[in-house]
């Protein structure tokens, strides 16, 4: 936020300059807030529009958080609003065939090597299908369906 120019004065508020908008179906909002718990105090506005909620956050979210949002609700739309007020949709977070790596979600198969606490593994999942969402564990090959993903993420 250092490169302010006079043009910014045309905007209603300077703090609004860079932000993230998340459009999500209303029923999923509580889950979304549980993911965003660290950021929740900063969720500026929740606008209800038809059966959707639009949440506004005063910053860009990390890839990890974006991935979690999409895992929770693959149909959620995420927009970044740049300093000059232009909004663009953030796409490509969940794509079929793409891998999700890191400690974002865990394989629920208790017999999976990634579920053995002492083994040095890093969870890794392939996006098999986007809607309805199906992930596949790289190690044990098991599918994880969307309801299991939601149950896990919203507990975090």
């Amino acid at each position: 936020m250092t490169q302010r120019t006079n043009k910014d004065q045309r905007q209603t508020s300077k703090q609004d300059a860079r932000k993230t908008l998340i459009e999500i179906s209303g029923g999923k909002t509580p889950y979304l807030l549980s993911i965003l718990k660290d950021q929740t105090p900063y969720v500026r506005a929740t606008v209800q529009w038809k059966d959707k909620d639009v949440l506004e956050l005063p910053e860009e979210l990390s890839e990890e958080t974006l991935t979690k949002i999409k895992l929770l609700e693959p149909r959620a739309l995420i927009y970044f609003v740049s300093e000059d007020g232009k909004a663009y949709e953030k796409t490509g977070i969940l794509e079929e065939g793409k891998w999700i790596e890191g400690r974002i979600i865990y394989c629920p198969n208790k017999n999976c090597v990634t579920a053995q606490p002492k083994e040095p593994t890093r969870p890794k999942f392939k996006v098999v299908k986007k809607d309805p969402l199906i992930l596949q564990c790289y190690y044990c090959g098991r599918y994880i369906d969307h309801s299991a993903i939601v149950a896990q993420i919203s507990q975090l």
Partner: protein
Amino acid sequence: MDIDSRFKGRDLVSILDFSRQEIERLFEVADEMEKFAKSGKEVLKDRIISTLFFEPSTRTRLSFETAMIRLGGHVIGFADPSMSRTVTGETLADTIRMVDSYSNVIVLRHKIEGSARLAAEIAEAPVINAGDGSQHHPTQTLTDLYTLRREFGGIDGLKIAILGDLRQTRSASSLAYGVSLFHGVKLYLVSPEPLRMRQEITDHLKSTGVEYRELTHVEEVLPEVDALYVTRLQKERFADPQEYERLRGSYFVTKKMLERARRGMIVMHHLPRIDDIPLEVDETPFARYFQQAAFGLPVRMALLSLIVQ
């Protein structure tokens, strides 16, 4: 690059780690190895195989160990899970690191799914999965495919019925993956409803264009199939024992049942059988499971000779 050099140092975790072309090359080498199955061929002199069997499997282990000895190499390892438990006060990862430092190839059998994948990531030496979890058993599948090829001259276009517990039996899942590398194979997946093949595998069959049909009784398709691959139905898998009693008749292959099979059909089994194939079937012209088991040796000799540096 010459095809044989593509094998050097390679891991084999899933049958899908190999291409059709590579499998066919391996079979050519196995054809040659059949001649040396009794006499030996010392191409891996002074090389060491580690056989780490965290889950017992006498048959698979002996087959690997014999293959290595016939190739002139040496064997270290353990077969007894209680022994392995004392080793595994440490993690699998640490066991693999230790063994890796003095092995030229590591063979791993483990009940934890994905352990062979992890071992392959850690070890410098090639890792061969001798069965982990419910999906992969690539050397069993190589042996099964080799048996089919020996019997029918090829695998393309065969009609194969896989019978039994298709949900938990790794040989069954692994074979389904294996035939997807060939053309026009038709699978009949015969199991009780709750023991159907997992969606992970049937999705793979769909995406690779393998025609398959799921059914509960084998009798209706028996006259059509070229091979009947039998796996054991375990009573413990049924919530309702009466359900097991009602279905078991369709999953034990009898001489009477085989009267409906076409000439030239073969019955396969990864062994050991318990009561799923009674002794009376052994004397029929259909029985092929002992030959199938014997082919495990030249196939494993071929694999070891190709991948060990």
